[in-house]
């Protein structure tokens, strides 16, 4: 059985925001959702995560027992909070193994004392390496510094290599081309 399958999925908040989508995702596969701003890409992720966007039509089938990890575009609010990078990873159950050296060196410092790029990479890692079969990543390249952006494609491929299925939304076509197996166009509703 596929890890994830959608049939005629139409999701939104007050009304459907995108045309019906049908696709499937296998373990170890990375799928990019593409489309113009406002097409509903983030809404699709929220619907796949469950408990977020409303499903107006179609259905979502997730393999029994599969766990989902979900990274949104909102950075964790850590300003003024005494939380280290290692503690953030521990909260989601993410392992630090495989972190780049420059990021590993930040693990035991307070997150609000790190640069924005360092902090964002650890926040992304905390979801990417969380115990999950399906990972939903909304603009994972946002706010990364140059080193983080360079490390991201290999980190995504490594995670897929561990058996996770990944659905990501990204405006960064270079990232999508570097690591995604397929790309799916999300089209907005006409009205």
């Amino acid at each position, binding site marked *: 059985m596929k890890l994830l399958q959608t049939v005629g999925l139409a999701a939104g908040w007050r009304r459907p925001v995108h045309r019906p989508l049908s696709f499937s995702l296998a373990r170890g596969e990375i799928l990019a959702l593409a489309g113009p701003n406002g097409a509903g890409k983030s809404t699709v992720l929220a619907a796949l995560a469950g*408990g977020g966007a409303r499903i107006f039509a179609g259905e979502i089938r997730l393999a029994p027992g599969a766990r989902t990890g979900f990274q949104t575009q909102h950075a964790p609010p850590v300003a003024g909070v005494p939380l*280290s990078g290692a503690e953030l990873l521990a909260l989601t159950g993410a392992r630090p193994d495989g972190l780049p050296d420059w990021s590993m060196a930040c693990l035991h410092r307070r997150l609000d004392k790190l640069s924005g790029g360092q902090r964002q990479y650890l926040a992304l890692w905390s979801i990417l390496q969380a115990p999950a079969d399906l990972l939903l990543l909304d603009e994972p390249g946002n706010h990364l510094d140059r080193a983080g952006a360079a490390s991201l494609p290999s980190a995504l491929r490594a995670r897929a290599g561990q058996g996770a299925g990944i659905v990501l939304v990204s405006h960064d076509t270079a990232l999508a081309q570097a690591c995604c197996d397929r790309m799916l166009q999300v089209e907005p509703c006409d009205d």
Partner: protein
Amino acid sequence: MTDFLPQLALFWRPALTGALLALLLPCLGLYLRMRQEYWAALAYGQVGAAGALGALTLGVPPIAGGLAASLVVAGMKHPLEKHLPSTGIFPLLFILGWSASLLLTANLPGVERLGAALFEGQLYFAGVEMLVGAALALAACGIFLWRTGPLLLLVRLHPAHFRAQRLPAWAAGAGFDLLVAASLALAVMSLGVMGAFALIFVPPWLAFAIAPSWRAALAIAPALALFAYTLAFALALIHDQPFGPVLALAQGVLAPAGAAIAAAWHGGAKKA
């Protein structure tokens, strides 16, 4: 000072009760601060005081009334959030609790003493039931936070991931609210409204500024609170002062000292 040790021997139960609360409240305060809900401490405390006064007029033990009122308010929090802006709920409850407390005290005979005690703090009159209550509250909170503390942080830092993982939302919501409400109601009966609020607010505030990690904050906040509490207990006993205001004052003195330590800490960290 020569009288202090004999007095301490006499007041060992209140001393131990307060010490247990001084360990408990800052730990809860850390999570309240994380959730930006420190107004909850004032609201639960003040409503608990009103409940205790109301219970006394009905012939019910005040501690039962305080606990019941605080728990009812904690249970109402989520329904109220659907109809009112969430940032205003706790300040509103605090105002209502304050109003009810003062009106009860002003208009009903026999509750003035309790009313004054709830505002001043009546730690020295804490009996064995308060000591047992504080010990049970500390044990319950310790177990709860050990098990669900990470969830409380996760729901704040990665709320969408928390929902996607189907983690138990009750623990990070109603479970924590009820625990804080019960603890505050208990604390107010012995430390007074502002004394309890000072313990739940000031040490976590300082720990947030100076702790290098959450784990360190969980050690620093109770340590600071215990230090200020011990100082206040001794001063109030030696100088025969109401305990609540002295405790609040000790926390207030602690604040600039803590801020200076934080500034030195960050200065040292920058130089390093």
